[in-house]
């Protein structure tokens, strides 16, 4: 049996259903975003961890020039080491049938007759290579798909200038290459970079490492400090040319995954609260309106002997229903969008069993957040309801007390007609009510603006990186530092118009107790093809007398211009130097350290060496250039910048782009919800005045003017405010998304702002016109005979 009070609740709710839906929809957007982002974060985090666990992902890795096989046992005996895999690894080129441009590949050895102890493979198709045959190989899944390679296919490999025929016998995934990125590249290009696993013997011969290894992957016992183990490993491998062990934070695939998880977490923690805040606002408006119209009923209930808490509970239940409705809608929506997102992520990240599933804790948190939002929105109105003394509630309400406005406004108002004066005085009399609408609309606009900044920022990164920073056509990298005489060989390749050398090396940077492993890039004097840009996009010439650091790296090392950083090379002579920080820049991509190239060569005690070259080529001779370039004996990878740009655009549009789209859709929905809700409340508040105007003989249009003019005036205040908040919110959000690899710039774009303003203004106008139909249907007699 439903109590009379609850029956009243149900009736009132069905009367307010449109309003309830608008508030619930805004709440649902926030909840959906939260469920999607938190759920996706959790799903990806656990899928990654499960994959890393089951496939024994390495905790530490190091390259070494050449260490005898026996050293593997010494490493395995180190305290804290759970498993070791000593391998042959190296880079080379692949020649694919029907493709003139060479493809880079990372070759990795597989132990004979057993599974790798670290970085196990998941065989997707075919079989493992037969250790007795030296021409059988596995390739990674993304590469196989992108190039339509299946078991049975034959390709050619170029290792140290030697060409050999390889048969693909299977397709595999590895936790090491969830994201397969070519050396020197920043993003995966599955068409142009592959991983090739072959037998240990075959690769040992190809890379001239018979009876030795050049790559070590380690798993550690749980709870062991990787830094302690890496120091021990480095000491062991020093005499064999160890390059310094590094953890997952420097493994590019792991780093990418961690970055994506970070941005999902940012999305989950930063945005839903903003949506919830707006929902709180709307709920507050709806419920205060309800309590105002319920004055007499509240008085009546109190006179019947209902307690204050019973009345408080009754009105709190409205908020409860809104909140639960919003939460349920949001959970269903979030779960669905999360499923779609997981499909997209599965394509980008090669993680087995990556399914969207938000656990009960996520749903519980969503429900609690919705309820808290509901309660926060209702608190004020509920308090007002309980505080109303029964006698006051039963007496007819005094007309709202208005006064004259300031002389200036009154002067202006005296020139207005009566209806406009009504609007002006109402806004001035109830600044908080007006502010609620203004803030709601402004927040919706700000969110819409902010939501579009992420894709805009990405577009800017791509445009600046490939338009202003990297102006070369081709990047060619070498496996080892080469004598700079190679520049002459390269310049003689067909179609080459300009050659610019670069020297980069992995170093440890130390300042105080901070220690970072990073690349130190030696930039040629007057570099034109690959320039270091500051945040104002001015070219910065790295200096010879010190380090130019990216802002991210400077933050990690906690150094400012003038501070001294200790630099130790990880290869060659393992030179060390104390260098001052001479400049800090904010590049959009990749946090690195820079120096003038010749100075770097001197510091490393290896002058006149290069590790890569940037080229301008005549595009008409692209094929001839490719054909000849792949015959160079020392080439490691060849990357055409236009390809890289396309891959990067596609990658960013796929993953984060989808999330951004969802965000834009939700922001738009919210703007519409706020618009409708505000218009509805304004109509409800004005009902009596509008009916009076109609009875006095004003037509529908004339009466509607009062509603439209008020919404219009509030809109005019809200739009500039929303743009202002949008700027602040966008700047802040972009800074939250920054990672080691990306620095998201805030970009002012008038089209974006104009489009958002038009959308929000349009939503408010359409909602107001929709609500305005209520003026036509006003029950004149009913409204005027009621006591308000």
């Amino acid at each position, binding site marked *: 049996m439903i109590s009379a009070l609850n029956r009243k609740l149900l009736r009132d709710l069905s009367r307010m259903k449109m309003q309830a839906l608008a508030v619930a929809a805004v709440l649902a957007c926030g909840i959906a975003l939260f469920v999607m982002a938190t759920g996706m974060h959790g799903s990806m985090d656990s899928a990654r961890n499960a994959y890393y666990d089951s496939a024994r992902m390495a905790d530490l890795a190091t390259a070494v020039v050449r260490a005898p096989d026996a050293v593997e046992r010494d490493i395995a005996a180190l305290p804290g080491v759970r498993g070791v895999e000593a391998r042959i690894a190296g880079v080379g080129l692949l020649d694919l049938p029907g493709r003139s441009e060479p493809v880079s590949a990372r070759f990795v050895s597989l132990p004979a007759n057993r599974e790798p102890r670290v970085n196990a493979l998941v065989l997707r198709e075919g079989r493992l290579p037969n250790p007795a045959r030296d021409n059988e190989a596995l390739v990674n899944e993304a590469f196989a798909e992108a190039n339509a390679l299946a078991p049975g296919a034959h390709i050619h490999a170029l290792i140290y200038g030697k060409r050999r025929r390889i048969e693909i016998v299977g397709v595999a995934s590895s936790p090491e290459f969830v994201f397969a990125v070519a050396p020197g590249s920043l993003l995966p290009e599955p068409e142009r970079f592959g991983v090739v696993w072959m037998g240990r013997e075959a690769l040992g011969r190809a890379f001239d490492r018979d009876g030795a290894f050049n790559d070590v992957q380690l798993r550690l016992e749980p709870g062991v400090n990787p830094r302690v183990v890496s120091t021990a490993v480095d000491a062991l491998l020093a005499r064999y040319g160890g390059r310094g062990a590094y953890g997952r934070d420097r493994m590019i695939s792991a780093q990418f995954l961690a970055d994506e998880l970070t941005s999902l977490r940012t999305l989950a923690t930063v945005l839903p609260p903003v949506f919830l805040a707006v929902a709180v606002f709307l709920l507050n408006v709806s419920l205060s309106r309800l309590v105002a119209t319920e004055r007499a009923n509240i008085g009546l209930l109190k006179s019947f002997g209902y307690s204050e808490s019973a009345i408080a509970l009754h009105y709190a239940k409205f908020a409860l229903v809104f909140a639960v409705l919003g939460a349920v809608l949001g959970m269903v929506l979030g779960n669905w969008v999360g499923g779609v997102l997981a499909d997209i992520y599965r394509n980008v990240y090669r993680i087995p069993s990556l399914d969207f599933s938000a656990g009960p804790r996520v749903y519980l948190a969503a429900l609690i957040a919705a309820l808290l939002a509901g309660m926060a929105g209702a608190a004020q109105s509920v308090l007002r309801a309980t505080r109303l003394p029964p006698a006051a509630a039963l007496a007819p309400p005094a007309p*709202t007390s208005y006064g004259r406005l300031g002389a200036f406004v009154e002067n202006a108002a005296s020139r207005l007609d009566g209806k406009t004066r009504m609007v002006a005085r109402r806004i001035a009399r109830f600044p908080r009510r007006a502010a609620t609408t203004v803030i709601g609309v402004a927040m919706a606009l700000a969110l819409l603006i902010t939501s579009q900044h992420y894709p805009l920022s990405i577009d800017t990164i791509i445009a600046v990186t490939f338009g202003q920073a990297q102006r070369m056509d081709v990047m060619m990298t070498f496996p080892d530092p080469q004598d700079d005489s190679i520049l002459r060989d390269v310049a003689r390749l067909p179609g080459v118009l300009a050659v610019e050398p670069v020297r980069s090396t992995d170093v440890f940077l130390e300042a105080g107790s901070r220690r970072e492993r990073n690349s130190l890039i030696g930039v040629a004097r007057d570099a034109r093809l690959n320039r270091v840009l500051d945040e104002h996009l001015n070219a910065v010439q790295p200096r010879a007398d010190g380090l130019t650091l990216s802002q991210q790296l400077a933050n990690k090392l906690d150094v400012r211009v003038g501070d001294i950083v200790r630099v130790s090379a990880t290869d060659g002579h393992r030179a060390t130097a104390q260098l001052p920080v001479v400049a800090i820049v904010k590049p959009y991509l990749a946090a690195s350290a820079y120096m003038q190239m010749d100075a770097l060569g001197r510091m490393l005690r290896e002058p006149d060496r290069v590790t890569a070259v940037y080229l301008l080529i005549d595009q008409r001779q692209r094929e001839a250039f490719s054909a000849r370039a792949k015959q160079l004996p020392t080439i490691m990878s060849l990357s055409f910048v236009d390809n890289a740009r396309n891959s990067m655009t596609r990658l960013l549009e796929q993953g984060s782009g989808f999330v951004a789209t969802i965000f834009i859709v939700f922001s738009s929905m919210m703007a519409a919800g706020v618009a409708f809700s505000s218009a509805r409340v304004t109509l409800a508040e004005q009902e009596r005045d509008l009916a009076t105007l109609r*009875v006095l003989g004003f037509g529908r249009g004339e009466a509607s003017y009062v509603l439209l003019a008020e919404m219009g005036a509030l809109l005019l205040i809200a739009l500039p405010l929303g743009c202002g908040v949008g700027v602040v919110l966008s700047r802040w959000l972009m800074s939250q998304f920054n990672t080691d690899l990306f620095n998201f710039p805030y970009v002012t774009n008038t089209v974006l702002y104009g489009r958002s303003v038009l959308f929000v203004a349009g939503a408010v106008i359409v909602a107001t016109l929709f609500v305005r139909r209520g003026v036509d249907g006003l029950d004149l007699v009913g409204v005027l005979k009621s006591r308000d």
Partner: protein
Amino acid sequence: MQGNAPEPVFRLRGVRKQYGEGDAVVLALRGVDLTVRAGELIVLLGPSGSGKSTLLNILGGLDRPSSGDAFFRDLNLATAADGVVTEYRRHHVGFVFQFYNLIASLTAQENVDLVTEVADDPMPSSEALALVGLSPRADHFPAQLSGGEQQRVAIARAIAKRPTVLLCDEPTGALDVATGVRVLEAIVTANERLGTTTLLITHNADIAQLGDRVVRFADGAIRSVEVNLVRRQAAELHW
């Protein structure tokens, strides 16, 4: 008497009004015939739910009969288009309700201005306020006026356009006797000085003595029509 009787303003023939359908049908008016002549002050008397408000709403163009004809001069309010009815309200009808329905954000004078701004031949707002004895309070907002004063502003607003008819639905229902008397005086003044045909709803039999005729309602029909040979002054009333 018939030869020089004033022309009829309203002519109602067989006006019926029903709400709802099927089992829930409510007959608010069961066939009303009534002629109202120019300048008359008619008091509609009857218990709640007897149909008097429904009739007044039909006469004011706020509602339509389910069947029958309700003529204002030559305009059949039962069948006229919405826009025509709005124009009719705008130019010919003044309303006064039990709850004054002033616009709270406008002063007394501005509430009256609202009507004079759109009427064809209004009197100055100040004159309308003077007629109800409120000239000194013209600049006050509704919240600064007593209930009786607010109702008199509503009357001033209703008569400022020099309406053909003034329709008052329990204008004293929410007021005490002394205040009610002043409100009634204002209505009678408008009727006498401006010659505005006035219909006044009340369920207070004492007030009936103000009218030229008293129409008694019960169960949606007219039970009797009495003619007051002598109209009492509002000040003589007490209840």
